């Protein structure tokens, strides 16, 4: 074990693998000192565990109705009460974590690569390529995200896939901006000039030498954006444009509890608390990652 730690701490790594592991180790050490970031990490890990082991953690099936016990307050049997069809709210929240994770990761998996490549290409080639791509991102950025997502969903029709597509369309331009800014600082550095002299193609330079260097600021930005993505998805679900019933999506659950908010407060309140906890988790982690990866911004 001590040997392994020494290998990680080595100031002069002898292999690429050692350098990479060592870097990750130092990052983890720095992150561990940041309490809020650790709290965020714990929340997100819990969310992932909930999603994977949902059938074991939930006390009832997500769509099992019990009309006799509808709208019953939180009790030993139903920890967070039941909704208007007698479904157990705690179990629905647990299963809902799968939907939240699905949306968040899919949006990130669509929007981040598109933004990353568009930004790197614009920054690396410059000229009219840059002007066209950045013109397009400027137009998208000049629109409020939720409004943009709303009108795209209106056009594509409600549903969870269309909500994901709409949110991804509204999200990628900000990633393109960041990737471009990073690329501009890297483009004129000497190691890029060296690779160019060796005869590497533009594709090769962009994909294997520029993109990897944009990753750290990208990870920070995506993590910070996760909260926004969750809120937009929940907003679409709340308006009935996202996940459709009987799927236990948190925003849609709040929407169904809206009618009972004055008398049966738990139906709408509980899923809201779940959304807040998870979004806060991503915010905390994103803040912490930024402090660690980008010391210039530290403590802000």
């Amino acid at each position, binding site marked *: 074990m001590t040997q392994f730690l020494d290998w990680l701490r080595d100031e002069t790594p002898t292999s690429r693998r050692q350098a990479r592991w060592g870097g990750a180790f130092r990052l983890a050490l720095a992150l561990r000192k940041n309490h809020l970031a650790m709290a965020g990490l714990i929340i997100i890990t819990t969310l992932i565990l909930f999603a994977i082991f949902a059938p074991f953690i939930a006390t009832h099936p997500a769509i099992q109705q019990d009309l006799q016990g509808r709208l019953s307050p939180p009790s030993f049997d139903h920890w967070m009460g039941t909704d208007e069809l007698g479904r157990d709210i705690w179990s629905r929240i647990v299963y809902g974590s799968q939907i939240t994770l699905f949306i968040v990761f899919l949006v990130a998996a669509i929007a981040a690569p598109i933004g990353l490549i568009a930004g790197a290409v614009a920054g690396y080639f410059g000229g009219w390529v840059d002007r066209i791509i950045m013109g397009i991102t400027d137009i998208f950025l000049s629109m409020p995200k939720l409004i943009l997502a709303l009108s795209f969903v209106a056009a594509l029709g409600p549903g969870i896939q269309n909500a994901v597509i709409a949110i991804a369309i509204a999200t990628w331009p900000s990633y393109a901006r960041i990737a471009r800014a990073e690329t501009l600082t890297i483009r004129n550095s000497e190691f890029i000039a060296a690779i160019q002299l060796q005869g590497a193609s533009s594709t090769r330079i962009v994909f294997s030498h520029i993109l990897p260097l944009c990753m750290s600021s990208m990870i920070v930005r995506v993590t910070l954006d996760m909260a926004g993505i969750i809120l937009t998805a929940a907003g679409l679900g709340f308006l009935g444009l996202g996940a459709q019933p009987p799927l236990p999506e948190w925003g849609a659950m709040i929407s169904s509890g809206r009618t009972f908010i004055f008398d049966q407060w738990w139906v709408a309140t509980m899923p809201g608390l779940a*959304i807040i906890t998870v979004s806060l988790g991503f915010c905390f982690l994103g803040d912490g990652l930024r402090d660690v990866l980008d010391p210039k911004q530290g403590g802000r």
Partner: protein
Amino acid sequence: MVTFLGLIAITFFIGRVVPIDPVLAVVGDRAPPEVYAKAKQEMGLDDSLPVQFFNYVIDIFHGELGTSVSTLRPVVDDLIRVFPATLELSTLGIIIGVLVGVPMGVIAASKQGSWLDQIIRVVSLLGYSVPAFWLGLVGLSLFYAQLSWVAGPGRIDIYLDGIIPTVTGLMLVDTLIAGDWDIFKNAISHLILPASVLGFYSLAYIARMTRSFMLDQLNQEFVITARVKGLPEYIVIWRHAFKPIAVQLITVIGLSYAGLLEGSVMIETIFSWPGIGNYLTTALFNADMNAVLGATLVIGAVFIGINKLTDILYRILDPRAR
């Protein structure tokens, strides 16, 4: 200008990918093919896409956004009618956000690292993680249903509706013009909760940015000089450190004011507030595409306009940016 054309292009594109056939909506689905073709020609839908786009742009610059299928009135008239309600809501929202957010940011920066700073940090992060519609619902159930501190949804009590003549469309201004204090108070009690919820979101961003700007200033030499001179701390902070960032804050406030337009969509739905956000969501459910695209266009245009205005204001106020 280019951005605005791009915005029009987006709404045009959305209008074309929509699976609803606008011709069928007019002639009905049992119309014979000749009638269908004639209607299609009259609506200009068999022209090529560039020609259609050109006509669309011309229409927009003539203030022509089509007729709403659900209200059967021109979308422009509808938008003019609902816009003041949103303006009133978001203006009070930004006022609350600035009045609370700026002092919060300044305090957090001047007591950096203290428990007060931590609390302010968590509160402002909450602004990024609490769903607006949820906060509105909980606020209604607590302050309206449980405590009865404020009035419920809507702009005014229903039995007072229509008493005050509409002059500006801003309820607070109109009641003042009419000189009716009771209705003014009623309108305020309806407005205060949705505006506070909306204000909370701008507060989060404003406080964060204020803190970050202040931290930059507090490390400057002229601040240290002021301290060394023995000036009281509140003068150092408010008169020496805060003054230079006031101009930077204008950009932040402008951005969050534009952002409130977005927040108002959710808030207006919850509070049955008859503004542009409510109009947009209602139109969405009636598949009323003219109204959806018109509202999207207007919100986008206002968003772009506020950003431009902020830019100009910044250039006028900050001598370094000239």
